[in-house]
């Protein structure tokens, strides 16, 4: 009867390594403490870093997705430079031309001014904004009730308005504003939609204190101008914001007939760039913390090597016995490598638990919400395994090179 070969030798090795390490619980624990602290701090710091960059991302995203803002240029007359937005250089035709660019999802003209709004006996001074029907997409700002105005309503300069939550509360109180007529600058408007609540912007302005009307209506019936204050552009993807910036610059220079040696009569601001700058400073901070953590992993690895060397010396006799009954060099090497790998993997797993604990504690007791993703966990597991194998190799190699006669003689 010939016994059959079974494939699960690796699990036997694993089990044997596990048992060996359990026999020296305290020593094993102290050995992997470095790895535990290292991995724990890697997970925690990356969690903090990702939480911070997510917070930045969120506040930038609330302004609009992949957004660029185009403002009219400043004038320079007789050595006196005026500020942004005073030149009447941006027109609705610019808006429609930009919308055709390959990198642009859509855009909207914006023309705003403060006006008194009247409904029955109430009146309220608020920001009246002329915008295109694409406004909810560009600003990521949908209506909560009713509808936003259509391209047809923009084309026909219809007297319709979509009202922000703060303005609605001030004018209508608890009454549903939809369907009511409000008066702006002596012109009646039908309220057709209520915007969802957007909150305050980064400068502390209440973004909900506004009434939005079609840009054409705004230009013809309220402001009486042929140019717009700003164009808000939504690029197709975050990457496209850079392309969009150069495409828009090129297009507008062409449309405005600006000679090569003259400066732009407009400004293009890329909000994603600002977000990326903020993100990269958060990333630098994370890298700094993570490298400190990596050093402690390295120290942990050296601790493992030290203990494995002790363990190999202690078990010289055992190595001799195993060699005498037929263990090859590779068998001995494998035995000790598996042992150190199991040791550091254990450290890694405990470290992940610790890191999770620290992350949740920070989330619970501070305003920062940490984000622990799968990535640092996988990296930690792989890294601690590698640390174990790398630092376990020399002791294991030393064990495998022993002379069986001398090893057997060892007491």
């Amino acid at each position: 009867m010939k016994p059959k070969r079974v494939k699960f030798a690796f699990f036997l090795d694993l089990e044997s390594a596990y048992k060996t390490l359990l026999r020296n619980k305290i020593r094993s624990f102290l050995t992997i403490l470095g790895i535990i602290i290292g991995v724990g701090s890697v997970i925690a710091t990356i969690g903090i870093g990702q939480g911070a960059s997510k917070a930045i991302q969120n506040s930038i995203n609330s302004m609009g997705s992949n957004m660029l803002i185009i403002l009219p240029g400043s004038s320079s007359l007789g050595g006196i430079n005026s500020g942004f937005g005073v030149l009447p250089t941006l027109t609705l035709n610019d808006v429609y031309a930009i919308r055709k660019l390959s990198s642009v999802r859509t855009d909207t003209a914006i023309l705003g001014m403060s006006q008194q709004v009247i409904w029955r006996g109430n009146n309220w001074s608020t920001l009246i904004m002329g915008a295109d029907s694409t406004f909810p997409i560009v600003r990521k700002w949908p209506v909560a009730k009713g509808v936003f105005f259509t391209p047809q309503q923009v084309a026909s300069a219809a007297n319709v308005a979509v009202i922000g939550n703060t303005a609605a509360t001030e004018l209508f109180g608890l009454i549903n504003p939809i369907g009511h007529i409000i008066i702006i600058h002596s012109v009646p408007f039908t309220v057709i939609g209520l915007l969802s609540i957007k909150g305050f912007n980064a400068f502390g302005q209440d973004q909900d204190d506004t009434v939005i009307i079609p840009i054409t209506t705004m230009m013809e019936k309220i402001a009486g101008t042929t140019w717009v204050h700003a164009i808000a552009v939504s690029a197709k993807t975050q990457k496209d914001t850079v392309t969009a910036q150069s495409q828009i610059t090129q297009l507008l220079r062409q449309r405005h007939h600006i000679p090569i040696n003259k400066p732009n009569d407009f400004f293009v601001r890329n909000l994603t760039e600002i977000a990326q700058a903020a993100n990269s400073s958060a990333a630098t901070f994370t890298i700094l913390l993570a490298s400190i953590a990596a050093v402690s992993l390295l120290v942990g690895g050296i601790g493992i090597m030290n203990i494995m060397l002790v363990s190999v010396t202690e078990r010289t006799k055992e190595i001799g016995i195993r060699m005498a009954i037929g263990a090859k060099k590779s068998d001995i090497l494998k035995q000790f490598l598996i042992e150190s790998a199991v040791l550091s993997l254990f450290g890694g797993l405990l470290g992940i638990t610790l890191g999770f604990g620290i992350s949740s504690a920070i989330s619970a007791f501070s305003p920062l919400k940490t984000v622990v993703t799968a990535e640092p966990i996988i990296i930690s597991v792989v890294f601690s395994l590698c640390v174990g194998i790398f630092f376990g190799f020399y002791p294991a190699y030393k064990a495998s090179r022993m002379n069986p006669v001398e090893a057997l003689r060892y007491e």
Partner: protein
Amino acid sequence: MANSYDITGKDPLIRLENIGMIYKIGDISYEVLKGINLTVENGEFVSIMGASGSGKSTLMNILGCLDKPTSGNYFLEGRDVSKLTPDELAEIRNKKIGFVFQGFNLIQRLSILENVMLPLYYAGLHSKDSEEMALNALKLVDLSEKVNKFPNQISGGEQQRVAIARAVVNDAPIIMADEPTGNLDSVRGADVMNFFEKINAERGATIILVTHDKHVADYAKRLITVKDGIILSSETI
């Protein structure tokens, strides 16, 4: 070819040709074995006797493929094993030779059964069948009741019987025993020696026993005396 075969076409189990062993410690060299010639046939029960320093332990290490001679050739079943690599020697120890040492040399962390299964594990066998082989070997030395105990839970005599079970589990043709009764009292010692006789008689295993104890050596059928690195005499008892 280093592998030379007997002209009769039948090789002896072991043939040592002019084996020499020189140890160098610093600038001084010690010639421990000075041209040993020895033939052991299959199924023999041989004891090697000699005082300490006679070279009998070195001879046993070479016979057991734990060490390589400085000069000469060692033919095991016709194959020259004196120039093999450490891994090739490990395989020969695993398949052809079972060891029983004076100090039992069991692995304390492993159970009796696991200790006996270890040579099978290194042979690449690990299954229910290898467990059965180990249980059979333990039955041979009357230890079926203690398979799940650990070495420190049984007596010295029992530990040595576990070592015998471990030596025979792979059906190795050669059992090498180095002072197997050295750590045991005379009753336990006799007990262990009876098992060697049994293995020799029932399994046909060749037994090579190294000892300095005349009473132990007397269990063998041939007595080889080593002195100062040479074979002094070889007599059939």
